[in-house]
């Protein structure tokens, strides 16, 4: 069975917002309307769901690891044990306002199928992922000649759960072929901070360490 361990967000881990939450989670949470119905796919230990709960959001979660699920349920969160690749098909159309995939896309077997399910189940999808187009990653491949390892992506190629990396540019292409409309996109820099400058996509693709996209169904 495929291990679906999220990659360690060591740097973003260090970057915590006012409430003590990870900045990337705050960015995601800020995209969710208060009072919305939310499904968090790959919800881990439930940190995002907890954060959303404080904002009056009706949140549910799916998590692959048994420990994560049991931890969430024991916290009173509504979380089921399941696999993004196989279990999203069980959810009816339009069941949620937002479906979130936080730092999990690169670990799914079929990212496109997962994204399309998200946009079927929810009015909106929010996807956050590490940007494989970041200059330091490019440098490692170009000059080191090996698969990149960074503080955020610490695994060796032969043991990484992350099997479908993409750059911001790649992800925009996936949105295009999946018919997803990009409502908002945020890049986080190497320190986990929000890149506030209005910049062209190539700049974000080079300097954004992580990206968060808010999507809706295209017409």
């Amino acid at each position, binding site marked *: 069975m495929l291990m679906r361990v999220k990659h360690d967000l060591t740097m973003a881990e260090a970057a915590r917002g006012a409430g003590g939450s990870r900045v990337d989670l705050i960015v995601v949470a800020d995209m969710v309307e208060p009072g919305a119905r939310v499904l968090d796919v790959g919800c881990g230990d439930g940190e995002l769901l907890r954060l959303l709960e404080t904002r009056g959001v*009706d949140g*549910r979660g799916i998590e692959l690891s*048994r420990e994560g*699920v*049991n931890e*969430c*349920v*024991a*916290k*009173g*969160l*509504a*979380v*089921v*044990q*399941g696999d993004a690749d196989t279990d999203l098909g*069980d*959810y*009816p159309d339009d*069941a949620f306002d937002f479906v979130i995939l936080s730092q999990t896309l690169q670990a799914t077997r079929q990212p496109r199928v997962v994204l399309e399910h998200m946009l079927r189940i929810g009015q909106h999808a929010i996807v956050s992922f590490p940007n494989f187009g970041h200059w330091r990653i490019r440098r490692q491949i170009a000059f080191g000649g090996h698969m990149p390892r960074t503080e955020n992506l610490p695994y060796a190629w032969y043991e990484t759960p992350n099997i479908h990396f993409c750059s911001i540019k790649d992800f925009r292409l996936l949105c295009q072929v999946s018919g997803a409309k990009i409502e908002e996109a945020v890049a986080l820099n190497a320190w986990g901070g929000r890149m506030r400058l209005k910049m062209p996509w190539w700049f974000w693709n080079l300097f954004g360490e992580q990206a968060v996209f808010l999507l809706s169904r295209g017409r």
Partner: protein
Amino acid sequence: MAELGATLDLADRKREADHPHSLIVRFSAGSPLRLDAGIDFGPFQIAYQTYGRLNAERSNAVLVCHALTGDQHAVNDHPLTGKPGWWETLVGPGRPIDTDRYFVICPNVVGGCMGSSGPASTNPVTGMPYGLDFPVITVRDMVRAQAMLLDYLGIDSLFAVAGGSMGGMQVLQWAASYPQRVFAALPIAAATRHSAQNIAFHEVGRQAVMADPDWRGGRYFAEGTNPRRGLAVARMGAHITYLSDAALHRKFGRRFQDRDNPTFSFDADFQVESYLRHQGITFVERFDANSYLYLTRAMDYFDLAADYDGAVANAFRGTPTRFCVISFTSDWLFPTPESRAVVHALNAAGARVSFAEITTDKGHDAFLLDEPELFAIVRGFLEGAARSRGLPPARR
């Protein structure tokens, strides 16, 4: 199996069926129980135990539903065997189902033999035990009777309904039949229908009972016999299905019972044989053979989808109830895929559902045993539900 002839007092059991060591509510023939079999059954009675206190708002009641061979004595010593209550691990002061906080009601199911009307109860028409004249009942009938009990107690809405195995079936039926009366539902090691394999096991048990010459076509009370051998064999067979290969191996392995070598006979050479015989003997002391037939039948008939146009999701469409579904890795009687099917249906119905599979080698019976992970999940789930319900936090 000479040792199966252990002494047991039939009269005690008979008395317990009519005049139990429990609270009782009696319904007259004027307010009968409408059965799925198409019969208005009455008069009838329900025996039940309560633990904790009902709050002024009547909002903290938890209904605990017992399994096939359980009864209402969840948190007190059993009046016939003197053994501790069957769910003292999970229910009680400071326990996950905290009786300092919640008002727990545990009724004996209709068809049972510990004081709710069942085949061992006296038929008012004949003055004799019903035996096979008792109507065939279903899980839905049990739940309907429990709803009448709650009406009698003046409890409009339950904070939670919890139960394992057949108790879990009742939980699901409660949520389907009375969604407005169930705030939180906790079906453990359960399923929306009894599988072919489970029906098969039950049929073996029933045939064992009926093959006992002392069963006398179900009229053993009248004829002064007791089908203890048949019921003991049924229990032995069933008990295996409640455990797991790993648990049996861990507990007994191939070890001999009080001997170093095989006796080259059919004595209980192995510990596991001795253990099963003991399970059989102790069971017949407290349980009625006909009740066993009726309750296994009720489980066999359980099929939630069949009552809702073939889709379980229809049973929960628009439900306000929040669910926590729990299964155990080594449970092969109600395996995890059965619980997953419940979760899928609840998702499809848009219900608020949690689902956890607990790692254990203890098999189906794990829900009755010391499983810290189970306790943490039940506690957390109820804690979250209590916050939403506006119940005051635990004092400790």
